[in-house]
């Protein structure tokens, strides 16, 4: 191959580069400085936010009466929500990360991710207008449903493993929810109908909530809203555990569940703990669902059948009309500061345990 003698245009580029050198250097230097300055400004702004709250917050003698029911309400809502979100979120995460077929996982994961994006006001609307009045008549049915669902799952699993032909079992392996979904759907009207049976009428009467907008409704809807948060984080943690760890154990004769319980869960435990902490933090600060469906009664009551009022919902209700500089305003800011601090604390804890998970995974 012959390469023609290079025929560059006569005048060289050196002069052109030299002419621009100063300008390019100036740009280079000022871009770096400008970006740094911008970041510094942002950092100051972020620092100013909590400080502004702090300087304007005020505590007086009455804060105990004003704030305690709100704090209790926040915790009540978050705790009831966790009762729903934890089993659902962690169960779904375990299933998706370790048992589902890859195709099924690829389907379920985006569904739950999109679920996480559903605006809270939409969930609050359904909770307040549809779920609350509907549930007021069916508390017993719901209790029955929640009790029967896991029993149904266990019974179905046991029968399936005992009776189904091996070929079927192999086909449905990793797709078991396809079997369970219609069963669960059938159980819903069954349990609810049972709850309204005349036989249990006296029992049902005792479970009649004082108001349709109560802790039970909040627990259910806030729990559903928190479930995808816990699911996403826990699923990531569980999926990150190398697959050969479990496969190896199964080769030694452990069942899929044993491999998960003994090997995978301990490794992923910090990630799951972080998921729980962040889920709790989310439930604590969630506003719209609680605001719309809790009745907003600032009373200290533990019962799930009574209403509540949370710090966050109280802020949304009262802050728009609070007179700037008044005692009330100061109190509101103080409650916000408290909520802010709690969430930061939970976040810091979650970050701490997550760092441990990363160490563990890097080590294994």
């Amino acid at each position, binding site marked *: 191959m012959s390469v023609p003698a290079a025929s560059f245009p006569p005048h060289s580029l050196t002069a052109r580069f030299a002419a621009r050198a100063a300008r390019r250097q100036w*740009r*280079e230097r000022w871009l770096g400085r400008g*970006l*740094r300055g*911008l*970041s510094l400004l942002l*950092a100051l702004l972020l620092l100013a*936010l909590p400080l502004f*709250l702090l300087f304007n917050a005020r505590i007086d003698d009455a804060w105990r009466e004003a704030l305690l029911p709100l704090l209790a309400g926040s915790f009540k809502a978050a705790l009831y929500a966790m009762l729903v979100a934890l089993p659902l*979120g962690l*169960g779904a995460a*375990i*299933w*998706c990360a370790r*048992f589902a077929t890859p195709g099924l996982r690829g389907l*379920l994961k*985006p*569904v739950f991710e*999109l679920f996480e994006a*559903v*605006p*809270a006001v*939409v*969930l*609050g609307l359904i909770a307040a*207008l*549809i779920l609350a009045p509907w549930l007021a008549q069916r508390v017993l049915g719901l209790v029955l449903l929640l009790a029967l669902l896991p029993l149904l*799952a*266990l019974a179905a*699993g*046991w029968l399936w*493993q*005992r009776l189904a032909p*091996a070929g079927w*079992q*192999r086909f449905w392996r990793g797709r078991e*929810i396809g079997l369970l*979904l219609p069963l*669960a759907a059938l159980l*819903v009207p069954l349990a609810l109908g049972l709850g309204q049976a005349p036989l249990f009428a006296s029992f049902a009467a005792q479970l009649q909530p004082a108001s349709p907008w109560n802790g039970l409704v909040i627990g259910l809807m806030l729990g*559903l809203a928190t479930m995808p948060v816990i699911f996403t984080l826990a699923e990531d943690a569980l999926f990150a555990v190398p697959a050969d760890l479990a496969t190896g154990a*199964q080769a030694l004769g452990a*069942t899929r*569940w*044993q491999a*998960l319980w003994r090997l995978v869960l301990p490794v992923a435990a910090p990630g799951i703990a972080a998921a729980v902490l962040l889920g709790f*933090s989310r439930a604590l*600060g969630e*506003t719209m669902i609680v605001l*719309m469906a809790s009745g907003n009664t600032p009373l200290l009551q533990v019962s799930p059948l009574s209403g509540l009022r949370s710090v*966050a919902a109280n*802020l*949304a209700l009262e802050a*728009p009309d609070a007179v700037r500089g008044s005692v009330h305003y100061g109190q509101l*800011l103080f409650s916000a500061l408290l*909520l*802010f601090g709690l*969430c930061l604390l939970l976040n*810091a804890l979650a*970050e701490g345990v997550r760092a441990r998970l990363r160490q563990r995974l890097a080590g294994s």
Partner: protein
Amino acid sequence: MASNASRPVQRRDLGLWLAAAAVSTSLLALAALLWVLLAQSWQAFAPAPVALLQWRDDAGEHSLLASVLAQDEQVLIVRGSEWQRRGDAYRRVLRSSLVHLSFPADALNLRLADGREILLRGSEQSWRGLDPQQRLVLPGADGEVPVRGADLVEVVAVNALSGWQRLGTGLQRALGFAGGTGGSGLFAALLGTVVLVMLMSVLVMPLGVLVALWLHEYAGNDQLARGLRAAIANLASVPSVIYGLFGLVLFVHGIGGSLDVLLSGTTAPVPHWGRGGLLWSALTLALLTLPVVVISVEEGLARVPPGLRQAALALGATRAEMLWRVVLPVARPALLTALILAVARAAGEVAPLMLVGAVKYAPALPLNGEFPYLHLSQQFMHLGHGVYDLALTGSDGPRDLAQAHATALLLLLVVIGLNASAIVVRNRLRERSRELSA
């Protein structure tokens, strides 16, 4: 693996059925939520059958032409003609008092521009194609109601509709509702939401991208960078209502209040900037979405193959030129993802807006033909806030509640659509970066 399945019953494997039950329950709940939303939204627009009712009570015998909205064994909930104003004609009728109930085929439902519905019997053709200027007199129950032809929005012979026609009428009404400018339309809320989110994007995108650039390309591990990273990570965990409070205290009262004093000299009795408004809301949402933007832009920058950076530097590009000409263009899908995620997050947020400027009813649009066209200090209407308002403080009972669900459905579709497109864009980005580095 397969031998595992053919082994006899393993009772210890039952736990996984519990996990499967969790997935099933969640999916069922999700499906139920969607179903409720769809069904309730349909109620807002479905043409309700018009019944001719006759009943007797202590006051005597009554006769009424009314839409049947709901019924059970004991009662009917109906709405008669709204002669006076929208929402004034609801009525409960005991089934036991009914003398006569029929659904006449010639019943007409007339909708007026202000949202009222009038029920009549007559021929559809005679009401269609009226001259807009023509004045009519509707034979009202309490006298006669004057109406112009132009006020007549819709004439439907409700009871004569086939299934498909009902669906068509419902969808037409839904579209009219989504774009409607009148008292019950969503146009103002939709426009408010769009303007707010666009303003927020204009604020957060440059800031987020520049800060992400600095953090990822310049900062290394110095103290400011570490602090900023920690602050942004923590910011992501702060409840959204707290952002609203930040906005209220810092932007509305702090900056806005000072602006008022600065501009008018004294503390104005009616605050202009020192109250919730479009700008403050956009700033608050920008703060709220900043972590989303910074984190996904940083992820995108990290995915730019190092070979491209080195190639640019080796050709004599300065760092700034490398970023501008190579890194940012390659990371463009990541910027798009960041924008979509931020918009999706912002479009669904309501709690902070309640504190910094969204209102139930704003007299003017935030964007209109009057100078300065974009009214930054004005309060505005918002989809999500509209859902809250319609649901809890609506004045028109069933109709407002049904419309709250329809509004919620629209909001949900917007947010889910944005998120889904973000997922698609991100997947494509990952494929492309794999291609580039392969």
